[in-house]
Each structure stands twice: as structure tokens, then as C-alpha cells.
């Protein structure tokens, strides 16, 4: 067949140009170390690389979450250990104090030590982490977990209600602490001074010990505490809200909060107390705050005192966490030995509560370790898969580069040789 001169030149040029393209492509691969430089070279692999990248960054984020959680749990663990030691010491002192041979000044000496322990325990319960967050305050970690009530002198929990959890894998969350409420306050008690749920906070237990040692074996008043979170107050600006507080089974004080708005629990307390004063009930009934909750107490103490709440209209009882008709009577004074005996039992219960928290922390730390090694393995596997998908096989690429290089050289040499052939040279 005929071949035109221009076309034969074009053919050689086409061949060289395609060799050069391949060579440039290989050179790009070799310099970037990547098999794929644009999605078109392997669309499916391009999408897979995005997926693998996402899995890796996500899992690395989980690893960082695990490290954060571990740090926080370790801090909680040491706080719990400190609390444990304090209670052990308090127990020793209680046993020592129960000894009948001690005189009142000996007991006072012990009392001062117990007061110190109480302060120390409050310090532990208000441990802060590096960010200044109170570790036992849950989702309200900007306020101390426990604060002393100015009226009652008791420590009350004022943190949040929810323990924060962190994501440690796609499907798994781990709490990075425990609520001070559950660890220090919500502890089973055998004492008559326990609240209506049969619970007494470890601070109140230590306070009872201190009071006993100070020879104040007081009778207690009837107290009912709402279990709802009223830190941010109540809004009755468009509602009719009335209820009755009944003291000692006979003195009925009507309270009316209709049309009012309260910014915080203290505002509610102030308003109710002023209504009680206005109605002449302030000698019988008192409203108080208990951390973020509200409580009502009879002023009189002893078995004949009691406090009851009854709804007239509106939603106050539900909003503040009272049952309709909820009632609690006071108890008479205990003997010294009985009061300290209950303290001893309750301190054991507190130790039990700390132990529960510590074992739960330990279990969580374990889970973190397990998840961490799983995540680590996953990252390694995914990275190797990613490498297989996107990284260049240098040996293979270099040998192909050599081959392509030789091919281009051959094409260039044949071109110049062929061009030398011309009949015109012989004319």
C-alpha cells in the first residue's frame, strides 16, 4: 500500500508522542509515590480511598477521645481513693469515740479532727480537672459539686444530673466520670435521720458524727425534699399555682405562686418564706434550698413534728418533684451510742458506694484499653489497605520506566534512520 511522506512522518511522531505520554505518567507516579493522581485513573479506588481516609481519621479521633476519657477516669480514681482513706480514718475515729472511757474533752478533740475530715472530703468531692471543671458535677461542671447550705450547715449536691459520655468507637460511649450525687449523697442509711428515701449523704453522716461528739444529740424536724432540678427557677407567669403546706398535722399554710416567675430556686424559697411569714406560719414551716432542689421543713423537731404538702391547683408539686400528700415526720433525739452506731453503719455504706464507683471506673478503664487496642488494630489494617490501594509499587514502576525509556529511544532512533532514506539522494 502507499504511504505518503507526510503520513509516515506523522506515524513516527504519534508513536513517539504516545511513548512520551506514558513516560511522563510514570515519572509523575514515581515522584508522587501514588498510583492514582486523578479519580479517572481508577474511579472505584478513588472512592474507596476517601472511605478509608475517613475511617482512619474518625478512628484516630476516637483514640484521642479514649485518651481524654482515660485521663479523666484516672483523676476520678485517685479522688475516690482519697475519699476512701478519709472514710477509713473517720471510721477509726468513730470506733475510738464510742469508747465509754472518753470524757467530753477527749470527744471534742476527736470532733475537731472529724470536722477537718469533713472539710477534706468536701475538697475531694469538689476536685477540679485541668480545665477547672468540677469532676463530680456532671453536666454542670462549672459549679462545685457540693456546697454548704448557709441555713442548715449541711453540704448539698448542686451539680448536674447527667454524666457526660464520650464516643470511643462508632457505636460505643463511655462516661468520663460519675455524678457526685450518686457517689457521695445517694447512700443507703439505717439512721432515723435519713431522708424519706432512706438515704443520707456521707457529709451528713460525718456531720452527725461531729454533732454527736459535740454532745448535740438533736431531734430532727420533718423534711420533705423535691427531687426535681429547680436551679433555673419556675415560670408561672401565666399559670395558677396553689398548694398547701401542713405542719405537725394541723397547721395548714396556703401558698400561691400564680402569675409569678422565678429565676432560681432561691427566689422560690424567698417567695414561699415571705408568704409563710405574712400568713404567720414562719414559726412552724420553713422553705429551704437543697442544692438545686427545694425542701420544706417543720420548724419543730421530734416525733410529733411533721411536714406535708398537698396540691390545690397547678403543677408545682410535679415541677418541684413532690408527690401529692407527701409527708415526713421528725424523729426524736438518739442516744450518743445509737447515733454513732448508725454513723458507723453509714460510713460502711459510703465505703460501699466508693467501691462501686471505683469498680465501675476500673471496668470503664478496661473497656477503654480494649477499645483502644481494637481501634489501633483497625487503623493499622485500614492504613495497609489504603497503602495497597493508593501507593505505588516502586520496583514495578521503575522497571516499567526503564522499559518505556528504551522504547522511546528506539522510536527516536528508527525515526532518524528512516528519514535518511530518500530517492532524491540518488538523483
Amino acid at each position, binding site marked *: 500500500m*502507499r504511504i505518503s511522506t*507526510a503520513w509516515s512522518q506523522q506515524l513516527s511522531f504519534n508513536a513517539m508522542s504516545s511513548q512520551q505520554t506514558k513516560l511522563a505518567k510514570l515519572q509523575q507516579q514515581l515522584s508522587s509515590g501514588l498510583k492514582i493522581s486523578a479519580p479517572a485513573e481508577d474511579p472505584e479506588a478513588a472512592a474507596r480511598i476517601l472511605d478509608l481516609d475517613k475511617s482512619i481519621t474518625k478512628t484516630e479521633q476516637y483514640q484521642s477521645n479514649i485518651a481524654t476519657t482515660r485521663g479523666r477516669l484516672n483523676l476520678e480514681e485517685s479522688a475516690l481513693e482519697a475519699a476512701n482513706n478519709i472514710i477509713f480514718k473517720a471510721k477509726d475515729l468513730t470506733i475510738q469515740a464510742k469508747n465509754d472511757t472518753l470524757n467530753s474533752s477527749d470527744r471534742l478533740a476527736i470532733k475537731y479532727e472529724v470536722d477537718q475530715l469533713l472539710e477534706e472530703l468536701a475538697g475531694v468531692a469538689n476536685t477540679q480537672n485541668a480545665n477547672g471543671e468540677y469532676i463530680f458535677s456532671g453536666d454542670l461542671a462549672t459549679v462545685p459539686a457540693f456546697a454548704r447550705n448557709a441555713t442548715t450547715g449541711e453540704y448539698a449536691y448542686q451539680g448536674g444530673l447527667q454524666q457526660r459520655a464520650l464516643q470511643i468507637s462508632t457505636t460505643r460511649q463511655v462516661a468520663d466520670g460519675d455524678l457526685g450525687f450518686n457517689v457521695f449523697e445517694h447512700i443507703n442509711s439505717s439512721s432515723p435521720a435519713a431522708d424519706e428515701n432512706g438515704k443520707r449523704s456521707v457529709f451528713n453522716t460525718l456531720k452527725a458524727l461531729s454533732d454527736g461528739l459535740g454532745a448535740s444529740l438533736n431531734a430532727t424536724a420533718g423534711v420533705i425534699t423535691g427531687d426535681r432540678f429547680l*436551679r433555673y427557677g419556675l415560670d408561672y407567669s401565666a399559670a395558677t399555682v396553689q398548694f398547701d403546706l401542713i405542719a405537725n398535722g394541723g397547721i395548714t399554710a396556703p401558698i400561691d405562686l400564680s402569675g409569678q416567675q422565678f429565676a432560681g430556686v432561691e427566689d422560690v424559697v424567698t417567695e414561699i418564706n415571705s408568704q409563710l411569714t405574712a400568713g404567720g406560719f414562719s414559726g412552724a414551716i420553713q422553705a429551704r434550698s437543697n442544692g438545686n432542689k427545694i425542701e420544706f421543713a417543720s420548724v419543730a423537731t421530734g416525733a410529733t413534728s411533721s411536714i406535708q404538702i398537698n396540691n390545690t391547683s397547678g403543677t408545682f408539686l410535679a415541677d418541684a418533684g413532690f408527690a401529692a400528700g407527701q409527708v415526713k415526720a421528725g424523729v426524736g433525739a438518739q442516744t450518743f451510742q445509737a447515733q454513732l452506731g448508725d454513723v458507723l453503719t453509714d460510713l460502711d455504706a459510703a465505703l460501699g458506694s466508693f467501691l462501686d464507683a471505683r469498680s465501675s471506673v476500673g471496668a470503664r478503664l478496661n473497656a477503654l484499653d480494649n477499645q483502644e487496642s481494637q481501634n489501633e488494630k483497625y487503623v493499622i489494617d485500614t492504613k495497609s489497605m489504603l497503602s495497597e490501594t493508593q501507593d505505588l509499587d516502586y520496583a514495578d514502576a521503575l522497571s516499567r520506566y526503564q522499559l518505556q525509556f528504551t522504547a522511546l529511544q528506539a522510536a527516536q532512533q528508527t525515526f532518524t534512520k528512516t528519514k535518511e532514506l530518500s530517492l532524491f539522494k540518488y538523483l
Partner: protein
Amino acid sequence: MSGLLSTSLSGLMAAQRSLETVQHNISNVNTEGYSRQRVEQSTRMPRYTGDGYVGQGVQVTNVTRSYDQFINKQLNSSLSAFGDADRYRQLSTRVDNIMADPSTGMAPAINRFFNALNEVADDPSSIPSRQVLLSEAETLTQSFNTLTDRFEEIRTQNNNDIGAMVNDINSLAKSIADINVQVTSGVGRTGGAMLPNDLLDEQDALFSKLAEIVNISVVPQKDGSSSVFIGNGQALVLSGDAAEFTTFQSEYDPNRLEIGLKVPSGINNVTSQISGGSLAGSLRFRDEVLDPAQQQLGRVAAGLAMEVNALHEKGFDLSGTAGSALFNFSGTEEVPVIKSPLNTGNAAVRVNFQDVNVNPSAAGNLDFSDFKLKYVGGTDYTLTRVRDNQVINLTATTVAGVSTLSFAATQPANIDVSALPGIDITVDLSGGQTLSVGDEFLARPAYSAAQKIGVNINDPRKIAAATNVEVDPVTKLPVLDGLGNPVIIKGPMPTDNRNALQLANLGNKLGMLGGSATFNGAYGQIVSSVGGLTRASELSSSAQQTLLNQAKESREGLAGVNLDEEAANLIKFQQAYQASAQSISVARSLFDTLIGAVR
């Protein structure tokens, strides 16, 4: 005796013509579109003598070019096919490279945004982590914006190219028509017996140039001129007249160019008739790669904003205030709606993205296509999905003059959706606004979403990391109100991270593409679909290249100049010339002999 001289002379002349033609061929060895020429010779009419018919030498009957209509037609159609495939490949490669570019890559930005959410969940009261989240959200929206801007740049350039190509078509058509006039007169001069070869070559070259831009069919006419048609018989050149093409803006989108043919009554839209050539490649790229990529990116942006905003608005910020939208779309309306200029009513149509809190599958239902809303009459509307012309019937419920359109009970057969595509549509007929049957509106939910997305808040304290749901610390269950709904604490819960955790987990949610993909997965699908189209275009471009080379080879085999061949011809005709000259010399010596004999 004089016959001797004249016969030799005819050989001399013929050889001279042939030599001229060989030289013409050699000179044009590198001329694009040149067809080699050869001299056709025949014997002259013999003279009758008593001895019989005596040959009178040679005559040149014609100078012809090696030309095959079929081969040229094949070449032109290959040029069109390659022009189309190669333009499409060049443009898709640009989009593909943008997708692969890590500086514009969406995937890392999406990953970092969700990681920043995780950091906020780890430390919800920390202002620095919240600040990082805001910057990552900013980076994410900027990545969406940048990527769309790059698409827009390509669109602008593509539009400029389309305009330039239409100008080229017009000037080529004009030149072809001019040559037609010359050819007709050249052919007429010889009574149709001889053709102006070089003019025809020039015209063929113009056909090839035209074929690179658009698929043409060339029909030779009796007078030697050629008519050129585009598409389904739109005449571009008829003898000496060339039609004029132009570009004009689409009815609904000023950034979309349509191709028109100027006729006395105005402009005919011939966009759909353009096939083959780089013009078709540009148009195909726009419809198959560029617009879908931009729309699918917009769908990811819209879906992300819908899901994140819905959850963010359910949460509470550091000061205990309910969260506002984290992302917004700039402009007065979320979804641009364009009124058809043919509408006779003046009612306004509003389209907004659905609230995921109201319809949990809204983000999954989003479609990347544009939608055409048409008023059918009564309470009936139709919504046409532009990408595949799927019709969805809608029914209007009117309250106080504002009609809200919902998915109708009766739908066309084979419909593949069962709800509105993640958008709410209202028609405002209040205040005497009217709507006529047949009025049309175009809504473009996904098209500009990635360009318009931005971050709505700039105060890190406003990030709603908390849910503020009150729980019982002992049972760890939410406290319910009288209606059974969780009670919300109305104040700041600075270290409540529950909403941030849920937001961070949105990164793992299969909420896109009908609940089959994460945001990252949906983006990955765009990458792989653009990659797939680009790859296919590379393959088809290289296949068309091979076919084009074959066509060129057949044409060059027939019409191309081979210098060796011409060298051989040069020798051949030189020898013929020398021989003829020699025979003249012989004739002269014969004369001399004769004259000498007489003397």
C-alpha cells in the same frame, strides 16, 4: 514530415505538463488537505493515410486529483466523533483533577468538621474547642464554595468556547460559500469537464475543520458546489449562501448558552440538534458532567445543612438558649425559583428545604436535579424532574391565599419516589396575585446550594452542644412532663455534651441518597461518578483517535504525496521529455539529410 515534429512536440508538451504536476505535488508535500494530482494523457486522433491510421502523438486530457468521496466522508465523520470525544475528555479531566486536588477536596474538610464536633463533645465548656469547630465549619463551607467556584470558572470558559466555536462555524460556512461561487464558475468555464482541483482541496480542508466542530453532511450539487447540512437537515451552506448561527441565554438560566439559527422571523433553538464535533462535546460535558457534579455537590451541602441545623436547633448553647441554624444559605430564599417569561400570572412561588425535625427523611429524599413546577388547573400542579422528565403530581392546600403543595394521591405509573424531594413548595396567591393554567417555574434546590452555603453563627458560645434534657440521676432516664415529653432545663448546662455527641455521630449517619450513604459517601459517589465518566471519555477518545488515524491513513494512502514516488515520476517524465526532445533532434537531422540530398 511535419507530423514527425508535431508528434514529438506533443510528447514534449505532455512530459512538461507531467513534470509541472510532479513539481506541484512535491511542493505541496506538507500542505494540509492537499490531494496529489496527476496528468491524464491520451493518444491524439490518428491520421488516416493509405497505409492505415498513423498515430499523432499524445494529448493531455485532464489534470485530476486522487480523491474518493467515501474516504473523505469517512474522514469527516471520524473528525466529528473524535472532536466530540476529545473535547469531552479534556473538559472532564479538568473536573476530575479538581476533585482529586487535596486543597479543594471536600472529604478532608468533612472529616475535620466532624472531628471538631467530637472535640466539642469531649470538652463542651471549652471555648477554644468551640472556636475550632466554628473555623472547621467555616473551612467546610468555604470548600463547598471554592469547589463550586471552580465549576463556575469551567462553565464560563466552556461558554466562551461555545461562543468561539459558533463564530468559527459561521466564518467557515462563509468561506465554504465563497469557494462554492468560485468552484461553480470554474466548473462552468470548462463545461463541467474539468475541475478546479486546488479550490476543491481547499474546500475539503474547510469541511474537515468544520467537521471537527460539528457533525456535517456534505451534499455535492450538479454545478460543482457543495451544500452543507447540520443535525437533522438544518442547512448551513447552500451554494453561495451561508446561514448564521448564534448563541443565546437559556430561558431559565443566563449562565446556560443555547445554540440558535438566525432565521428571518428570529432565532430557532437548534441545541438539541447539535451532534458530533467539539461543540457537541462541550454541550455534552455541560449536561453530563459539569451540571450533575455541581448539583450533586449542592445536594451534599444542602443535606449536611439540613441535618446539622435540625439537630443544632434542638440543642442549647452555653448560655442555655435554644440553638439557631449552624449553616445558612445566603440570599433571601434558600432555593432559587425562576419564573418562566411566558407566564401570564404574577403569583410568586417559594421553595425551601424541608425541616428534618418535621420530616426525618428529608435529606435522604433530596434530588440533585432541577424541578419544573407547572400549574395544571384547579388544585393540581405537576413537578417535573428535569434530569429524567419524571412527572410528580402535586395537590394544593390553600390557607389564606397561600397554597402549600403536597404529594398527590394519584401519581403516574412507574414513579420512583413517594414524597417530595426534600423541598417544600408554596404558591403565594394572596393580595390578588394570579396564576394561569400552564404557568411554569423552575426550582433549582441543589444547583447553587454549595455556592451559597455559609456559617450562620460566629460566637463560639452559640454552639448548641447541650440537649438540656432533665434526667433522673439514679435511673438515668429522662424526666417526662405530663404529656410524656422530656423536660428541658431552661438554663445553661455548660458541660452537657449530648447534642454535640449526636451532631458528631451525624458523620456516621446513612442519611443521604435515600438513606444509603453518609455525607462523605455521597461526596465519594460524585468523585467516582466524575472519575468514571472521565475514564470512559478517555477510552472513547482514544478509540476515536484510532478510528480517526485509520481514516487519515486511508485518505493519506490515496491522496498523500510520497516523495519517493514523485522522484521516480520525475525521472520517468524527465526521460520522456528527453526522448521527445531527442526525437525532435532526429526529425531535424532527417530534414537536414533531406535538404542535403536535394542540394
